[in-house]
């Protein structure tokens, strides 16, 4: 039944989507922190075949990150407390962007800071870089003592930062939501009202694992962010709630490892998806999901994947 599925190089027009005026050849992207700076995957997949990717969180200055151990596997997922080790916005613009521009794929710069000022400074630096298609504000990182989740847990703080970021750039602005909140729809409305062009969700859930023999947390940082298939049902539910609350294009994230997983998010209301943890244990998963979406369109006679966005029947 996959006869109309396009070949390795040909593109499937049915899969094209648009977010804040940016056209993605398909709705499948690599998620921030799991896709490096993109180039790491050039040996494994054809970067031109995926919709795009979000960089590791970039800060105004390079960050060393947390001491090891930084990751621990759990049932159906993993905890991480990387602590945003990254090369910094300047090095990304100078050392990574030139090589990335050779690829016909969308580049989203994921931005992090310890304070509003840090975020804005990072954006200013990145504004100099050609080829960045959008910014994704990471206000939901659980693995730092300030910034991140602290902002992502408060509608007012999130709205305030979003407004500042909005003024700091003309580029499309995606804000990434934290799932560690009582009311994700309220967060979404506050951020949408502050001028975001799109919302991506979810980031990781705060978790902890204890080594019962040493009686110490398995992560040096103590707590970490839970990701992977274990959290998918929570992510799908939140995408569905936010889709009902705001009318911005959404990027669904959380435990996606197969085409069917991606479709759950799209049908629940996401215009595109990002794949994170699955890249670690299945490095070509993004390309596989793109192929699977084409097959689904064949099987269900879907002419444009956009017709599936939010098509859930209740």
């Amino acid at each position, binding site marked *: 039944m996959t006869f109309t599925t396009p070949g390795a190089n040909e593109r499937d027009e049915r899969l094209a989507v648009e977010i804040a005026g940016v056209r993605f050849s398909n709705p499948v992207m690599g998620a921030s922190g799991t*896709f490096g700076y993109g180039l790491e*995957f050039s040996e494994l997949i054809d970067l031109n075949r995926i919709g795009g990717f979000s960089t590791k969180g970039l800060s105004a200055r390079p960050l060393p990150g947390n001491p090891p*151990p930084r*990751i621990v596997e759990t049932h159906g997922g993993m905890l991480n407390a990387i602590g945003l*080790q990254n090369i910094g916005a300047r090095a990304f613009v100078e050392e990574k962007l030139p090589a990335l521009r050779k690829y016909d794929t969308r580049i989203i710069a994921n931005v992090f800071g310890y304070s509003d000022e840090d975020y804005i400074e990072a954006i200013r630096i990145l504004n100099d870089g050609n080829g960045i298609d959008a910014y994704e504000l990471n206000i939901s990182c659980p693995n730092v003592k300030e910034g991140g989740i602290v902002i992502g847990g408060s509608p007012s703080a999130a709205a305030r930062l979003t407004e500042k970021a909005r003024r700091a750039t003309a580029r499309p602005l995606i804000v990434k939501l934290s799932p560690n909140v009582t009311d994700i729809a309220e967060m979404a409305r506050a951020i949408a009202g502050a001028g975001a062009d799109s919302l991506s969700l979810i980031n990781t859930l705060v978790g902890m694992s204890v080594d019962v023999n040493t009686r*110490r947390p398995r992560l040096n940082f103590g707590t970490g962010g839970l990701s992977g298939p274990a959290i998918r049902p929570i992510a799908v539910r939140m995408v569905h709630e936010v889709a009902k609350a705001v009318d911005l294009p959404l990027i669904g994230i959380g435990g996606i490892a197969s085409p069917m997983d991606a479709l759950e998010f799209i049908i629940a209301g996401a215009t595109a998806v990002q794949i994170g943890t699955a890249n*670690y244990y299945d*490095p070509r998963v993004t390309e596989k999901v793109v192929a699977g979406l084409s097959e689904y369109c064949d099987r269900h006679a879907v002419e444009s994947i956009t017709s599936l966005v939010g098509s859930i029947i209740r």
Partner: protein
Amino acid sequence: MIDTPGIVESNDELTTGYRLLTLRFDQDINARAGQFAMLKASDAYEPLLRRALAVYRAHGPRRLSFLYQVMGRGTEALSHLGGGGRVEALVPLGNSWPVDTLAPGERAVVVAGGIGSASVLMLCEQLARAGVDTHVLFGASSGRVAIGCGLEDFQALGLPLTVTTDDGSLGEKGFVTAPLERMLREERGARSVVYACGPWVMMRRVSEITSAFAARCLVSLEAPMGCGFGVCVGCVVAVNTREPLGYNSYRRVCIDGSIFPAEAVRWDVSAMPH
């Protein structure tokens, strides 16, 4: 680095808890001594992450062996694989043991602790082929474990070999670091380059000894790995840098290593879960 399925040719238990897995690939894989692979049984839902195993032996470019100890869920799942089974493999990964850097008159001392032996067999083969004056120090907790860690394969190389076991059931009783210290103390004239792979505590001691005798030392480190190819930044080790907590404080074991100069490593910050 390629991501390709491997077909299980054999997966035999050497002694309880230690197995030799041989995989066939339909692509050429040019693995150098000290490199590793990320492996996972194809139909396994759990655990999710692949596991890092050193390339123990390369029988031509399309046939690789891995020597592993069954520890937890991941290696347990690998141990259930039968002939014909399918494994997802990302390989080859990491840097490799530098041997060309050996100066004339320098001799090689290879220190293998426990299953750390898996990452140095190819190194020993290479040193033997190159005719380098090489001494192997092989440590294990017991004679039984030594067999599980491939002792016979090392003996077959015909290199001078010293075996130690914690319980004295085979060879010299005690830690493998004892003969190392003796050798470095005794060595007249000859300069040694030490290659070590084993548990963190062993390698820390090895590095203390080699620095005390100003001998060059290279270690292959272990760390819990999420991806194996540099993108999760989860497998870091703390390294010595000018500024105490500068950007360069941590290096990824999977791609900046797994082999590092011993003096670069901050042995006070273990990369491994306690």
